[in-house]
């Protein structure tokens, strides 16, 4: 198994070689995933793993994909989406043009869920959804809008629990083992790589979703990323986090108030 020193050394070298900085990530999860990667790739030793990661860019990209957590689903935490639908979307409706940022969108399930909410509210035509992630591979999947059929049962259950009243299957065409989502949804999405560690603010939004990303960051990195979101939010904009994430210890907390029903959504006070 990898030692702490080996992992620290590798993280430093990755910064030098590739400019990706993972030193602000929680170590326990990172270590667990590096060890799993080590086994999966049949590395002979840590030196072997290190060499392959540093000498082969394609292998490095694969490494990044494997050591970050990409698990996601549509309408994940249905209660959260129900609140988006009933409390947040009506506010968004009052804007002439809606800009939303999904930071750390993974394979895009969250973005398609949002697009469905907007479509059902008759707002999709005046919305644009920026979907970013540091991992190019997940973005390609998101952009394609093709998801395994095997996940549709769960997605559809979530959709119904989130208050969806249409036929969920009307949003995709089933194609053998895959579900191809309606192009009308993805037409409103812009996909791009963006690294929350090193890239800066690129627009102002009325809603930013960054769910299940911050739990993998240490306190300092969390604080920095929250500052970035603060800078990227319009006045009275909304910030939505994952079900175990919060603004509690953050320097921006005083400028935000959590919505009344205690879902993890905060509104900028001005």
């Amino acid at each position, binding site marked *: 198994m990898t030692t702490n020193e080996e992992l620290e050394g590798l993280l430093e070298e990755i910064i030098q070689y590739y400019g990706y900085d993972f030193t602000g990530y*929680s170590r*326990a999860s990172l270590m667990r995933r590096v060890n799993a990667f080590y086994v999966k790739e049949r590395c002979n030793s840590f030196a072997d793993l290190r060499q392959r990661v540093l000498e082969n860019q394609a292998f490095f990209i694969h490494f990044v994909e494997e050591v970050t957590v990409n698990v996601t689903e549509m309408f994940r935490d249905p209660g959260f989406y129900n609140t988006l639908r009933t409390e947040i979307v009506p506010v968004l409706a009052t804007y002439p043009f809606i800009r939303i940022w999904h930071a750390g969108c993974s394979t895009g399930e969250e973005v398609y869920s949002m697009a469905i909410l907007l479509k059902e509210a008759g707002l999709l035509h005046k919305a644009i959804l920026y979907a970013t992630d540091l991992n190019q591979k997940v973005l390609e999947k998101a952009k394609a809008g093709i998801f395994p059929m095997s996940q549709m049962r769960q997605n559809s259950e979530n959709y119904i629990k989130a208050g969806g009243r249409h036929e969920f299957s009307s949003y995709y065409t089933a194609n053998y083992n895959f579900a191809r989502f309606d192009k009308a949804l993805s037409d409103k999405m812009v996909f791009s790589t963006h690294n929350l560690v090193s890239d800066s603010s690129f627009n102002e939004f009325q809603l930013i979703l960054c769910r299940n990303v911050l739990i993998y960051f240490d306190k300092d990195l969390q604080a920095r990323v929250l500052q970035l979101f603060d800078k990227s939010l319009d006045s009275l904009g909304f910030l939505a986090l994952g079900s175990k994430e919060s603004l509690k210890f953050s320097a921006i907390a005083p400028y935000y108030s959590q919505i009344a029903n205690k879902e993890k959504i905060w509104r900028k006070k001005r």
Partner: protein
Amino acid sequence: MEKETMTSPEKLIVIGGSSGSLEVLMNLLPLLGKRLPVPVIIVLHRNNQSDNGLVELFASKTKLTVKEADEKDILVPGTVYIAAPDYHLLIEQDKTLSLDASAKVNFSRPSIDVTFSSAADVFGKGLTAILLSGANADGADAMIYVKECGGKLIVQDPDEALVGYMPRQAIEQNDVDMILGVVEIAEWINTEFRD
């Protein structure tokens, strides 16, 4: 920093359980001394719908502080942390907690294997891993690692357990230190960890 290392706990108890363990824990918690000088983590398999109020339920059974494990929580002696549903629970070198929503392990999230190994990494011989009743082999794999790191293994007596499969797996696969009934587990904890 200096001060933190002095006050941060050297020892940790992690209790893992699956079906049937809820009752065991309800019996175990009241028996624990109220000034337990060690933090306790409980990883319990459950289906995420029916578990609201688990923290309150446990809290009603003990004088110890009981809370759901939150990311960045600092492990404090005498506090019982309940792993949150649908997240793996990990322990950082600085003895804070972190959560991880990656794929299930042994069909489980939280997985006992995940928390046992992470705790062994950080606490080494200061770790006591206790496996209770269950119908899943989760926990058995990491027990080998706990042992390698110098930790102690206690398994609930399979004959007493409601579902003996899990402890039996663990006993077959590992060199466990003790096989005990619930009352003995509590007694052992109270004697081993004294103020």
